[in-house]
């Protein structure tokens, strides 16, 4: 089973102080910590587990600048065999549609039985690269996959629906599956493992090597053009309670008491 996994190098933002930069079209990247997209972490783990069971190879691919090497190395340390980085200054400003087109060019001539992507990227959250890639390759897809069984050229998968409901669908291989968090428990990567992975080669391909033209990538090749970023207006802002932890605890206790909750 040869599996390709698309991974994205994204900033951790849940705990970070996000600032919109002076162009108003993106955020300030300085000071942010980047790592593999949470969903992709599960996708890589799933691919490696399948390889360990059935044999084959796992190749990780990213569209990104040199910074993304650390994410690729993490995947190699986790058990991926090869890493490819697609990179070109012209790729700047690509939306997920353009990213899918770039990935398609790199993937179409590679041997594979399965392609995994994350269900969504934690930064821009389009949730569309996987199914678009499938469409461009002319192969089926299933999104938000939480369980995979492979047999006789078919992937039988559980897709997550809303409210705890799942559905089982079968897709013919080769196929693209977008992986939902919780499908497995990603293994711990040791420093040793990462150090070993430092020696592995990362193949880098640019726009012309991929046979892409300028109007297919970047903003020109995208569906979406960002006009401006802004801080979401708050409809209802919480009343903030401050003081020492004891004072705050006392204030909360008062509120709960007044409402008959204690």
């Amino acid at each position, binding site marked *: 089973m040869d599996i390709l996994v698309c991974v994205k190098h994204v900033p951790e933002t849940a705990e970070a102080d996000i600032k919109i930069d002076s162009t108003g079209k993106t955020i300030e990247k300085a000071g942010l910590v980047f790592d593999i997209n949470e969903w992709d972490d599960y996708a890589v783990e799933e691919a490696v587990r399948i390889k360990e069971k059935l044999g084959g190879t796992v190749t990780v691919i990213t569209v990104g600048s040199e910074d993304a090497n650390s994410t690729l190395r993490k995947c190699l340390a986790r058990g991926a065999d090869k890493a490819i980085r697609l990179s070109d200054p012209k790729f700047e400003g690509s939306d997920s549609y353009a990213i899918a087109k770039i990935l398609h060019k790199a993937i179409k001539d590679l041997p594979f039985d399965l392609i995994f992507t994350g269900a969504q990227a934690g930064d821009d959250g389009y949730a569309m690269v996987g199914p678009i890639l499938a469409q461009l390759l002319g192969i089926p897809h299933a999104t938000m996959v939480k369980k995979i069984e492979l047999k006789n050229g078919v992937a039988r998968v559980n897709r997550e629906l809303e409210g705890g409901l799942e559905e089982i669908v079968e897709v013919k291989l080769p196929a693209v599956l977008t992986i939902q968090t919780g499908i497995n428990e990603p293994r711990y990567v040791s420093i040793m493992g990462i150090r070993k992975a430092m020696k592995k080669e990362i193949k880098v391909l640019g726009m012309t090597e991929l046979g892409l033209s300028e109007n297919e990538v970047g903003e020109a090749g995208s569906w*979406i053009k*960002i006009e401006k970023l802004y801080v979401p207006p708050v409809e209802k802002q919480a009343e903030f309670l401050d003081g020492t932890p004891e004072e705050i605890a006392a204030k909360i206790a008062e509120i709960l008491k007044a409402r008959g909750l204690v």
Partner: protein
Amino acid sequence: MKEIFILAEHRRGEIRDITFEMLTKGKELAEKTNMELAVVLLGKDVKEHAKTLSQHAKKVLLIEDEKLENFNSESYQKVLSHLIKERKPLLTLIGHTSFGMDLAPSLAASLNIPLATDCIDLEIEDSALMVTRQMYGGKVNVKARLRQAESYLVTVRQATFPAEKASMNGEIIEIPSPLSEEAANKRFIEYVLPPPGGVDITAAEVLVGIGRGIKDESNLPLVEDLAKALGGVLACSRPIVDKGWLPNDRQVGTSGKTVKPKLYIALGISGAFQHVLGMKNSDLIIAVNKDPNAPIFSVADYGIVEDLFKIVPSLKDKIYELKAGKA
């Protein structure tokens, strides 16, 4: 007259709420731009749904086919591309749900029409389409323009618009199914219902919701004690279930449960919309998060910007003090 399509979403015999939410926005857009709103309904034996939907829009485009019995993105894609090519709607709205996420991107790519996903608002200016969406877990809003085209696709976030109320007596237009065969590459097998039993968090009056901010499984007893002090139970955000720290019947949110307790205390939860949709209607929401810009503070009644590990023990003590005073 140009049309705006709303793709009806239904599952296991019920029209899903997102359909009526999209109708609200669709109607507003259609009125503003003088276009006609049409609900597109695909399925098998769904005339009852068609009747219901005809009370919400001038037109219901109904395509019935055995092969459309259960949602299958491959079959749906075929029918919709046929319909979109034929009628050239300016805009098609689809829910940003597990159904829409499986369908919209490949449909857009196959037709080569621009798609914006997970939108929380949209407007039509002349024939250009502007959308509002969120990035970075809801910390930033984005206004974006779709590439100029004759037809656009947009997926709409759940619970963003109020549900439309029945106000019309529309026409049901039956269209013959363009499908000649079953989907060749994708097959629906069956639904899997969540296992019964466990703790029913939807019945609890007090929920202490924990998120990734609790950092480690070894911290569970601490928050469990607080829940106990309050006579409530623990609930959580998705990562806690993904890590296996709590069973999935404790998960609050779109892929978990929708809860409406008298009190919801959110500890170390950032407030991603998938979580918020599951708890925002709680009577009283108190959030503790060390990040003052965490989106959870825009749904909370009271906010505490502090390390949860400093607040939780003090709060537990205070509650017991209060209770002792009462006794």
